[in-house]
């Protein structure tokens, strides 16, 4: 069943001074079904972060529509957008974006607090999620006392705690070493198996090969897409590499 639909989205940045316009996205159309695990790849500057920000309602498209479960997000008021982000979306960022002043536990609880959940409900929710992400022992620590991998798992826990419809991740493995990255990808695969829809932007072929589908963006458009289907990870890895080479050499698809 279709969860997210992106229709002919265009984004032009107008810089205040000088007035030069940058077209970050020219015409993006795709959709994501419930329970999918999609990776988005593309060269630096191709507009991946821009797309993710628009999906996250942190930014508005210049043109086009975005529908979540058939409802248009396009021009939500600032307040509604914040509520929407909090309740329907979970975020994982490259640089974790944890608050140094909050303990691991409180970082995870942040969205619940902002939504005004009662205290006992919060405590009920945090236990299983912490256990699943192997951070139960770290709950009382502060972000500066734990490793990068642990930080990212904390961020994932924060993303999951509201039971969001969609997890958006912008290069989640970007700041992790290969071991911690693999661990995180396993976690994404695991939560996806449990029915969580995941959309991940990545530069890493390794990371993308974990996904069920890979979208390639070039010059602000969807250039190509690959379905993993019944293929093994190694096969998927090879296919992604081929597409990336084609993009880099400017070859036809």
């Amino acid at each position, binding site marked *: 069943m279709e969860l997210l639909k992106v229709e002919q989205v265009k984004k032009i940045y107008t810089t205040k001074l000088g007035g030069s316009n940058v077209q970050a996205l020219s015409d993006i159309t795709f959709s994501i079904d419930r329970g999918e695990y999609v990776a988005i790849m593309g060269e630096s500057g191709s507009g991946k972060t821009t797309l993710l920000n628009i999906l996250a309602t942190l930014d508005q498209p210049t043109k086009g529509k975005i529908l979540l479960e058939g409802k248009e997000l396009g021009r939500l008021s600032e307040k509604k957008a914040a509520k929407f982000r909090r309740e329907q979306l979970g975020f994982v960022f490259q640089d974790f974006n944890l608050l140094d*002043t909050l303990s691991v536990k409180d970082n995870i609880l942040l969205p619940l607090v902002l939504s005004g959940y009662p205290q006992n409900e919060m405590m009920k929710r945090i236990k299983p999620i912490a256990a699943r992400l192997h951070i139960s022992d770290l709950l009382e620590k502060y972000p500066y006392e734990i490793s990068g991998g642990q930080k990212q798992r904390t961020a994932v826990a924060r993303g999951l705690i509201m039971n969001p419809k969609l997890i958006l991740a912008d290069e989640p493995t970007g700041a992790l070493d290969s071991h911690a990255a693999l661990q995180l990808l396993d976690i994404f695969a695991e939560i996806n198996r449990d029915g969580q829809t995941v959309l991940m932007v990545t530069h890493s072929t390794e990371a993308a090969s974990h996904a069920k589908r890979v979208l390639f963006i070039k010059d602000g458009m969807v250039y190509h897409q690959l379905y993993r289907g019944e293929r093994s990870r190694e096969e998927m890895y090879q296919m992604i590499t081929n597409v990336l080479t084609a993009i880099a050499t400017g070859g036809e698809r």
Partner: protein
Amino acid sequence: MKALYKKLAIQNLTKNRTVYIPYIMAQTLMVALFYDLLFLEGNKKILYLPGGETIQQTLAYGGLLMGVFVMIFLFYVNSVLIKQRKKEFGLYRVLGMEHRHLKKVIFYETSIANAVSFVLGIISGIVFSGLMYMILLKILGEKAALAFGISGEAIWYTLLQFGFLFLVVLLYNYRQLKKVNLRELLQEHAQGDREPKTKKGLMIFGIICLIIGYGIALVVRNIFASLIWFFVAAIFVIIGTYALFTAGSIIFLKKIKEDKEKYYTPRYFTAVSGLLHRMKRNAAGLAGICILSTMILVTCAMSVSVFFGQQHAIRTIFPSDIIVTMSGTSDPQQDIEYIKGQAEKAAQQTGISVKEVKLSDLSEVEKSMTLVEGTQNVQIELSGSDEEKYECSTRLELNTEDGSYTYQSAHFISKQSPQEGAQSIRATYGGFLFLGIFLGAMFMVATVLMIYYKQISEGYEDRQRYVIMKKVGMNDEEVRESIQTQVLLVFFLPLVMAAVHILAALKIMVQICGILSIGFGTVFLCTIGTVLVFSLIYKGVYKQTAKVYYTIVDQQ
């Protein structure tokens, strides 16, 4: 090469203008105030005015006080600024600048900042000196004449004072430069402030200091000891305030944090956690704001009391139109008769009449100041205008021998009328009032500067946090609410504390004002009024600087 350092120094100052412009402005103002004070203190015209000498003595005392305060305060502000820039210096070092090169850049930076504020300060000091002169004359009850004052001597002493400050600041900055440790610098960012520990001992120490300070302020009886005890009490209160803010604020915030129902709400969650983590560094600033506010309140409340109490004081010291003080009387009734006769003669010559002549006791203040035993006052009430009364008092003749008034058994020590006395009272009181305005203005500048720095440094610290929270789903309104909780806690705590301090100081203030014959009611009302007005100003300052804070936090 030299040009390069200069250019770099100017670049650095412009780049850090959000902090340096207020610093230079504050220093400019202080130079101007200091110059004006010296100018008035050394002005010959004022010296030859009636009461001018008294005023200049008061101003000299104030100049000393101001000099000390200005040094401490500006030194402190500079140290805060330079510490904030450690990372920047580290970066220069990493980029390959040598220590001695950086030293030169710092030299130019410090020189430029100081020279600019000195020159601007002297210019505005000269411009304002005319105004100050006018105000002073007005307070003395003289005809106001506009006169601009350029005094080489005042400029020279100002230069000495601020030149010395410049040297101290420069040496301090060099030392800070030496302390830049590259390895630590590169790690520093990753290391957040840890949650501070609860310091129960410090809190108890602070409370004890406050109790001692308050105790002294409330117990002291002797009027002349008041001034000394005032300073002793002030020192205890200052130490107590620092300790209490450092330990108390952490304990207070931790209490909120332990109350889970309260803590896990949008209003408190981020605000309390954020405050708690930087309280270790913040407490000193808050205590400083509190102390400065208290100083403003005390100075202004006393000055205002002096201003409003002046007329009343003249009436208290001179309860009647002419007072004859005499001592060693064996037959007071006979003396009064004699005085009455003389007074009627004088009144007749002036064309008015004597209403009453009576014997009165000395007031408490007079008793404590009079050395001669058995001193008594005779009060004479007259009809007519102030001028006529004054004329009559000059006509009143009492027999004198050996320079003191004698008649039969009595020695007449003095003969005074309010019109005469008012002059010297105005000089004394005017001096206090003027100094109060001066010091109040200076403390105010200092407080505003401190609040401003707090807001911007916190703004930069909080920006990243609010960016993250917005991403996670906090809306603008919630951001504002959270900021408000935080800022309210931070900024109104010192104000409340300052109000408590001044309540404790009230008794001693009343006693000091008592020396000037200003009553409890006047001091009390003036203090309440001052606190209210100051709260309004404080709120205005907070609002203005909060805007700066929002802009910083809101920046994309």
